[in-house]
């Protein structure tokens, strides 16, 4: 789960990381009021869960409250990469001396958290990594011990931070480690961390991602989920414990198991079709789950055919077949359905579906070929 900048910075502040004064606004008049409170120049920043807001014109500097109102109105009317801007963050503007990149994330290959810092702040870190990889400092942290003080000092020294800032930087590093470890973040990023002209370190921008598997111990963070920023079908799928990702093709896929679901998409493409989605119904899919999955797939109007690929192991094919029949009765789909049932009780499952006007297939390749043909309106 991604958090907005303003949410991330509020969390940073709780762990002693200095952030600019500011508040979030949903209306231009509110933005003006906040600007009046703050006095002086303010930055109006769109709050959407995509990168590249600045380049898209979603971050503007306002000299006074009136200008803040005008710019906030403009930004609130924008769409950035397809996402409408619903909120802006109004922050006091900082006089910047220099910018640093500072983050912590999971290093999957090393199986440890890694702190990443660079004196080239303000840019996308991927860009820095591509152009000047030597400017990126990486320090792995023992997940059983946590960040050591010397590691924070080492980072400060490695990015050539002047000594007068080391103490403050170490406090921020400790805070960032706590932000990461106590909130089950998969990413906690400050970009940029600035040195201001009046010699303070301030986290101007913040980004956090939280591990969905750890939500059970973070009720406070779960409330921060912004479902407005998700595709509605993905929100709906999560309710039923389904894993669904919408794609642009015309062949809907309903599969048990993540690896097999990806494989089904791939084989559709291999036989000249385009998959409309990834959907894993998981194990033990009863009729309610199958019906919910079918509705979600068919809510995509691009779908011209649906491929069911079920490998019965522990999940029994006759059970899934019954689920499909109940779902068909409820949803009454108008597009052709191709079904492949293999494994435990596949024969019984196929018999159940024989009268249901479904196209049956034996092999994966056969199923893919038939669904591609069905989507093109051929028999």
């Amino acid at each position, binding site marked *: 789960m991604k958090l907005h900048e303003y949410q991330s910075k509020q969390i940073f502040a709780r762990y002693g990381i200095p952030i600019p004064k500011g508040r979030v606004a949903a209306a231009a008049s509110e933005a003006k009021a906040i600007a009046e409170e703050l006095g002086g120049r303010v930055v109006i920043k769109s709050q959407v869960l995509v990168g590249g807001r600045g380049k898209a014109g979603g971050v503007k500097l306002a000299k006074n409250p009136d200008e803040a109102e005008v710019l906030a109105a403009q930004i609130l009317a924008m769409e950035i990469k397809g996402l409408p801007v619903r909120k802006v963050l109004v922050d006091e503007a900082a006089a910047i001396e220099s910018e640093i990149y500072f983050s912590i994330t*999971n290093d*999957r*290959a090393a*199986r*440890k*958290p890694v702190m990443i810092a660079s004196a080239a702040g303000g840019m996308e870190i*991927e860009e820095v990594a591509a152009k000047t990889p030597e400017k990126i400092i990486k320090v792995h942290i*023992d*997940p*059983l011990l946590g960040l050591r003080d010397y590691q924070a000092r080492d980072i400060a020294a490695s990015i050539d931070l002047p000594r007068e800032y080391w103490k403050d930087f170490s406090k921020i590093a400790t805070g960032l480690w706590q932000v990461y*470890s106590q909130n*089950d973040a*998969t990413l906690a990023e400050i970009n940029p961390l600035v040195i201001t002209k009046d010699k303070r370190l301030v986290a101007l921008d913040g980004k956090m991602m939280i*591990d969905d*598997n*750890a939500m*059970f*111990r973070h009720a406070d963070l779960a409330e921060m989920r912004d479902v407005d920023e998700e595709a509605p079908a993905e929100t709906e799928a999560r309710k039923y414990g389904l*894993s669904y*990702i919408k*794609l642009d093709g015309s062949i809907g896929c309903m*599969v*048990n*198991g*993540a*690896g*097999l*679901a*990806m*494989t089904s*998409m*791939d*084989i*559709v*493409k*291999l036989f000249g079709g385009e*998959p409309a989605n*990834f959907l*894993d119904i998981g194990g033990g899919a009863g009729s309610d789950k199958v019906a919910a999955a079918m509705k979600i797939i068919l809510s995509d109007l691009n779908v011209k055919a649906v491929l069911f690929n079920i*490998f019965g*192991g*522990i999940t029994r094919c006759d059970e899934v077949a019954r689920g499909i029949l109940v779902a068909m009765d409820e949803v009454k789909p108008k597009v052709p359905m191709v079904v492949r049932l*293999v*494994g*435990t009780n596949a024969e019984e499952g196929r018999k159940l579906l024989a009268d249901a006007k479904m196209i049956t297939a034996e*092999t*994966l*390749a056969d199923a*893919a070929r038939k669904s591609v043909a069905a989507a093109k309106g051929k028999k």
Partner: protein
Amino acid sequence: MSILINKNTRLVVQGITGNEGLFHTRQMVAYGTNVVAGMTPGKGGEWVDEKIPVFDSVKLAVEATGANCSVIFVPARFAPDSIFEAADAGIPLIICITEGIAVQDMMRVRNYIDQKKVRLVGPNCPGLLTPGESKVGIIPGDIAIPGNMGVVSRSGTLTYEVLYALKLVGLGASTCVGIGGDPINGTNFIDVLEMFEHDPQTEKVVMIGEIGGTDEDKAAEYIASKMTKPVVSFIAGQTAPPGKRMGHAGAIIEGGAGSAADKVKALEAAGVKVAKHPEEIPSLLK
């Protein structure tokens, strides 16, 4: 011969009295696995199906039964503790079926067990199957026959698909190892490839990977430099969009890394035959 498990495996089931644990314990017993003990805190002294004693702790189960392998069917929030407990009780081989463990928990688990002589398989995996001898986990026993193909995979049902395709043409497996779909797990491709390389029964190896991470790329390096046995592979997720988690926590293309195309390229460069789809695998093994 086989790898990891065989008929001498003495299994303790952690979470034996839960729905999943009980169901799969019965399946494993029916397959012939030697399930010597169960463990559920607070249920010590009970019996499962009047044959399997239940203990309050793994330590007690090991002391009483000599269990040398553990399988974990415990909900995600408690499963890390179950792994620590099994490791501390001296179990050398732990298989964790549980899906959905928080990634920071798994980092702590992995860094802890790396300090001990413990092998963890999983989490988020279907477990192990040595056809005809023993099954530890949830792989349906009847989809595979004994044979000389070593199978290792990050996926569940996709693995079943492959075992089944092999069976249809009369090919059997020495051992099938599901290493799991999480970004941080206990056993990686290289670990299993090395075991298959040294297992006299295994003649060829099938490796089923997917998008996310770099384990397949590292496996390709290992295959090129160390392996003498032929390897056939399939990589799922050719059509997966970047930045999206495809069901498995570990199946995500991040920062341009971990795409199926890159993995296929690395494997082909290492001399691995890569199937375009799973049903092509048996013909590539011929």
